[in-house]
């Protein structure tokens, strides 16, 4: 094929430009750390990367939810433990009251029972972040001064799994913990107080039985809270592991292998130098220089 100097010049320009393009591509990959910068670099990988990113965000949110759940459960646990201890004290008082004592001693016991009843009432009405801890999803105090227990039955749930799974209930309802209606703890404590004041031994004995029932009820709730705590902690661990896996997969899909890219950059640099050298010799002297 007939070759003219114009052709050689045009070819040189084209080769140089193509070399530079490749060099630039590797450079920008190294600078950004990413193999896939726009969707068109690798459309299927880009789609996968979008899915993974969404999953990562959902996972991070679940971790936040788990932390929030743990806080709820710990507060509830603390309050219930305190309540159990105070009930234990009440039982002691009741047992002492059952042993025939003088009126003034029984009155003193009744007074202490009354004050513990108020303490328990304020525990039942305690607030967490401005809302009633044992009140479900309502805003009203679950235990009124008369001792009636009313909550709206709502459950406070937290998502601690992937976006569609694992939801835990983190609250305890006052009706479950303290009983309702005639069997409510506060009604029973009122009865104990009355029995102590009046020296009603049978009444005191009955009250002790009811206090035991109340303690069991609280114990059941504590067990539930404990079990939920365990679930939340294992979920926490699992979510952290999943986060690592997702992050690794995302890196594989969209990030560039640094070591590989550095080697590639070196190769491109050498190739570019070689191209420049070849082009430097591309336009050989023409016949003009040789004719006298």
């Amino acid at each position: 094929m007939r070759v003219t100097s114009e052709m050689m010049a045009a070819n040189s320009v084209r080769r140089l430009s193509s070399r530079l393009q490749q060099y630039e591509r590797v450079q920008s990959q190294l600078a950004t750390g990413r193999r896939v910068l726009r969707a068109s670099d690798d459309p299927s990988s880009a789609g996968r990367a979008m899915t993974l990113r969404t999953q990562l965000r959902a996972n991070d949110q679940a971790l936040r939810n788990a932390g929030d759940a743990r806080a709820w459960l710990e507060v509830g646990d603390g309050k219930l433990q305190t309540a159990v201890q105070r009930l234990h004290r009440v039982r002691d008082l009741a047992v002492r009251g059952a042993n025939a004592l003088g009126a003034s001693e029984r009155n003193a016991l009744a007074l202490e029972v009354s004050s513990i009843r108020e303490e328990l009432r304020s525990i039942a009405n305690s607030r967490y972040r401005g809302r009633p801890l044992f009140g479900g999803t309502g805003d009203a105090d679950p235990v009124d001064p008369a001792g009636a227990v009313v909550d709206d039955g709502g459950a406070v749930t937290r998502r601690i799994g992937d976006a569609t799974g694992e939801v835990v209930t983190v609250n305890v309802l006052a009706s479950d913990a303290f009983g309702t209606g005639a069997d409510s703890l506060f009604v029973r404590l009122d009865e104990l107080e009355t029995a102590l004041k009046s020296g009603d031994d049978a009444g005191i004995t009955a009250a002790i039985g009811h206090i035991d029932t109340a303690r069991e009820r609280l114990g059941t709730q504590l067990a539930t809270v404990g079990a939920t705590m365990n679930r939340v902690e294992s979920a926490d661990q699992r979510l952290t592991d999943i986060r690592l896996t997702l992050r690794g997969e995302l890196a594989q899909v969209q990030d560039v292998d640094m070591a590989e890219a550095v080697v590639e950059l070196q190769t491109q640099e050498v190739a570019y130098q070689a191209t420049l050298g070849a082009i430097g010799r591309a336009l050989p002297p023409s016949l003009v220089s040789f004719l006298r």
Partner: protein
Amino acid sequence: MSNSVGLYTSLTGIRAAQIGLDTASNNVANANTAGYTRQRVELRDRPPYASAIGPLGTGVDVVTVRRLRDAFLDTRLRTTTAGAAGEQARAELLGTVEAITGEPDAGISVELDQLWDAFEDLTLEPTSPAVKQQVVSALQSVADRINGVSAGWTALEADAIERRAAGIDEVNALVTAIEDINRQVEIPDPGNEPVDLQRFPLPNQLLDERDRLLDRLVELTGTGVTRNNDRTVTLPDPLDPVAGGELGGVERFLTTDLATARTQLDAFTTELVAQLNGAPGGQTLLDGTAGSLTVPITATALLAGDTAVGAYDTTYAEALAGLRNGTPAAELRTLVTGIGQRVASAERSAAAQSELVHAAQMARRSAHGVSIDEEMISLVSYQRALEAASRVMTTIDQALDVLVNRTGVVGR
């Protein structure tokens, strides 16, 4: 008689050599001129005269200076250039469409992820004014981003339309110029015999100019060109400027690619608005279509749940947070990967076409281009021919001189 014929013969030799030198110097001067075709002198020996001993030659005639142009290579290059220009234009415009979406780092998907997170934070703190404000801000960001993409595409469409209009103006100017040259080079009534090149010498420079104009015209429109044997070219009438070539690529982008992308964006937006507004609670969170989305709800009016059930109920917020895995996210993925695939395929196509163009261009340059070495050799041979012809003339002159001045002077 034969001697003066010999003089005249050497004169024709000198003239031919001079024209050869002129042509070679013209070629060398135009070695780097774009679209210049190398020229060659065509020589023919003159008709002989009938002498006493038979026909004797009378020298050389310069028939013409002809451009060594290969019309087939022209057609091949123009066709491939038209295809490549169209694909290149389309790939460029599609690349801008993709850049405007800003995915994956600064696009709608980022704002959507933040929105789902904000809804979930609302389930943790259903009555917090700060969290509610966060939700409304996230909604506003999503609306702004979608509107931004739509506005960006509208601006791009306006640019492309302007580009097409400017291209059409250029096409009109080119057609006028080509017709102008046609008028200048036209041979009336050529018939079927070869053209008499003495009466109608080849207008090489005009023909080169017309070929340059045709190159550009075909690059822009991909039109076909018919050569006639009266030295004119005929273009299709009416000439559709957007049927192919660069303008065809722009047109394809406007009518197909951009329209498809817009339809997908609208579908995604409609789905998102429907899902958000149709969630339990029936709160109108987003209103409008892509390009004019608004957030009608305020932070104080936003409800996390049904207050009739409880002040801290979170059913609405939970349902909204659950949309993270719903159809809007999937539709957005389809939109983004769809655009990505189209851009990638247009770029690949443009690159492949560009290789074809380069090959055709090299072939054409090989046939039409000036090789300095060849011209040097031409120069040297014409120079020698000139020297030789001058020498012949001198010789004949001296012979004549003897005949004229020194014959028959016996006794003088």
